[in-house]
């Protein structure tokens, strides 16, 4: 369709204009506009209350400043405590720190777990008598084989 934009839409596209105009029948539910003003006042009051509760720009900055100062105080106190504790460890127990560390690695062939009692067979009467662990050692403390 050849036309000029200066024409009215009714001249160029009369059917389209009439169809689109049908959308004017789309309305909100009944009673919507009666409640609209009440809803407006309710929202206004809510917004005012929020505004009153919200701190001002200056108050927000001072609050932030206070929080930062408090945080630095906490960090400072924590660091000071840690430094004091470290210093006390070095001053009070210098000998303990100089002692060699105990060798906890197991000796080869020695079971560190408490050994089960060795059973000695009494061949004379066929009664099996368990030996006490003290019987395994001589007076020198060496293991008797």
């Amino acid at each position, binding site marked *: 369709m050849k036309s000029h*934009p200066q024409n009215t839409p009714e001249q*160029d*596209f009369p*059917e389209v204009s009439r*169809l*689109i105009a*049908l959308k004017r029948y789309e*309305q909100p539910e009944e009673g919507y*506009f009666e409640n609209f003003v009440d809803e407006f006042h309710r929202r206004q009051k809510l917004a005012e209350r929020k505004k009153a509760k919200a701190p001002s720009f200056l108050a927000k900055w001072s609050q932030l400043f206070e929080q930062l100062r408090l945080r630095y105080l906490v960090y400072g106190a924590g660091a000071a405590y840690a430094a004091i504790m470290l210093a006390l460890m070095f001053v009070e127990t210098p000998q303990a720190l100089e002692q060699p560390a105990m060798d906890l690695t197991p000796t080869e062939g020695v079971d560190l777990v408490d050994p089960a009692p060795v059973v000695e067979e009494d061949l004379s009467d066929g009664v099996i008598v368990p030996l006490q662990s003290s019987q395994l050692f001589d007076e020198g403390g060496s293991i008797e084989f």
Partner: protein
Amino acid sequence: MSEEENISTRERDNELVARAREGDTEAFDALINAYAPKLYGLVYHMTSNHEDTNDLLQDVFAKAYGSLKRFHGKSAFYTWIYSIATNTTLNFLKKRKRRVAMSLDDMDNGIINDEVFTDLSHHANPREGNRVKELQKKLNEALQQLSDDHRAVVTMFDIQGMRHGDIGKILGLSEGTVRSRLYYAHQQLQAHLTEFR
């Protein structure tokens, strides 16, 4: 609306605005009652969603109420509040970007008695209920195909029956630009609505 009606409406609005600025809430309520139905149509046909329309309309009146002191009466209150509504809706649509939720049950029964619809039903399909829904769906789809700016112009002109000059003032465009946007939009719509013509 005739010129005389325009003048009396403008005088009434200016008086209500002056009273509202002095803190008379009933005066602002009267402005809400006068403009909420018209603005509802504008916002709804741009968003195709009743819930969004309700929130946006509340925002529009809240903004207007908060800015009353900046309204000096150089333009009509009608133009001023329509500009707020259009800008608020266009900004919302930019953020929303095609989250289209079209309702299919809310077309008023008035459409059944519209002579355009009666003609269409008579020629095409005797089942009116289905035809209404089908037509509404097609109309909504066609409108959603347009850009937000073009939809705004079509809504104001074709659905709300506003003049080119008034649309231009609201959107800050020349009358020529409004006309060419309408022409382009109608071309697009025609392509989508061929079966109903």
